[in-house]
């Protein structure tokens, strides 16, 4: 993170009435790579993205995208930012070809071959009307329109929402294709943790408008560990375990998910006298669910700079 970040927010806050949608968000997205923005429904991801693009005014705080204040993004900055909305909305009366022509006239740099490539990938007929396209086809068209200006920063708001697995895979492949150049950055929000796991380099986790984690994916994955304790009889009552996120009981065993598992944690677990203690692999989805569980969301904040709590 030595270079200037492509996205930087300081105390970015947005209220809708008395309810905070985003609260004191301090975020830095490094140049290059894929940055996943995670959170449950209503956690403030879309609100954040809309503020980053100057489509929504923050209640307080500020943000910068490509070095420009989000409240005054000049046209030259917008030309460098591709934005794909979650609903893939376009003008229904236009044909696919007309959509391309309409967008091409607005952008100083337009790579028609990219658009054609994406349309071919999604098997889209240029003469088809947008209103007749399926959701997946519309997503493909939107993606093509977003990629054709060869944006430096691509912001995707839950791009895979409602797509079938094939369309989702195609979308992910396109994202990877875009970031083949190291100066390109993809910032995307998603619920599809399998997709995130496949492509993301960094993640940020937002919970009820508050940033709970912002770090490389690998750091997140290694910070949340799952341990299986097996007992000869019924498992004992659990004591206070440092970094405990989630615990589940089975027959003769207890599984605990812990944050920053270390010697102190292991010592407490061994004091329960299990016949076996085994560190188990945990998927990103399980780690994410454990992290945002009732204990996790209140107890830990994980950031690259903070390190261990």
């Amino acid at each position, binding site marked *: 993170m030595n270079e200037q970040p492509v996205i930087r927010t300081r105390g970015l806050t947005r209220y809708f009435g008395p309810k905070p949608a985003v609260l004191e968000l301090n975020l830095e997205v490094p140049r290059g790579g894929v940055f996943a923005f995670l959170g449950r429904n209503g956690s403030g991801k879309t609100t954040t993205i*809309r503020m980053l*693009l100057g*489509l929504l005014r923050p209640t307080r705080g500020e943000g910068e995208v490509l070095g420009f204040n989000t409240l005054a993004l000049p*046209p*030259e900055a*917008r*030309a460098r*930012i591709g*934005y794909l*909305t*979650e*609903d*893939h*909305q*376009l*003008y229904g*009366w236009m044909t696919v070809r007309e959509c391309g*022509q*309409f*967008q091409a*006239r*607005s*952008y*100083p740099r337009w790579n028609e071959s990219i658009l054609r490539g994406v349309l071919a990938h999604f098997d889209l007929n240029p003469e088809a009307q947008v209103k007749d396209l399926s959701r997946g086809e519309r997503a493909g068209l939107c993606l093509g329109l977003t990629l054709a200006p060869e944006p430096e920063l691509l912001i995707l708001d839950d791009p895979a929402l409602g797509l079938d697995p094939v369309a989702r895979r195609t979308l992910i492949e396109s994202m990877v294709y875009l970031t083949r150049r190291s100066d390109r950055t993809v910032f995307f929000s998603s619920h599809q943790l399998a997709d995130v796991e496949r492509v993301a380099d960094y993640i940020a986790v937002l919970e009820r408008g508050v940033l709970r984690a912002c770090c490389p994916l690998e750091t997140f994955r290694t910070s949340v560990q799952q341990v299986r304790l097996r007992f000869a009889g019924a498992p004992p009552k659990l004591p206070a375990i440092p970094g405990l996120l989630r615990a589940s009981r089975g027959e003769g065993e207890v599984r605990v998910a812990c944050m920053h598992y270390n010697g102190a944690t292991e010592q407490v677990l061994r004091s329960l006298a299990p016949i076996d203690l085994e560190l188990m692999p945990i998927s990103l989805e399980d780690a994410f669910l454990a992290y945002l569980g009732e204990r996790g969301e209140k107890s830990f904040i994980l950031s690259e700079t903070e390190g261990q709590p």
Partner: protein
Amino acid sequence: MRALFRKELQENLKPAVLGCLLLTVMLLVQYRNCTVVPGSQPLLARSLLTVTSLFCALIGGLFGWLQMRRESHRDLWAFLIHRPVPAPNILLAEILAGLTLYALAAGLPLVALVVWVWVPGHVAAPFEWPMVLPVVADGL
């Protein structure tokens, strides 16, 4: 800006053409009613002016509403705004397109009526250019 202007025109051309036809029919009916009385000038007839003033207000409001409604979806609004075009230019394109559509729907039939009345031999009444002012005022 030209792309946005063309998009707006294409998007709302049908209502504009329909409005143009509707006003033409309404003006024809009023014109016939007015010319029954010899020597009366249709451009000054109260019934015709009432129809034009009501129609112009309604069609103007309709185009404004249509232009806003079509872009009112949050994502479509973002699609319109997030492009390398200054925001004032986007607004200007929308306004110019709205005015052009209004001119087609309301202006064209009114101009046709004025030209018809102005050409000697069509209406058995004197014609002076100031007589056009009430119709122009309705249009504006």
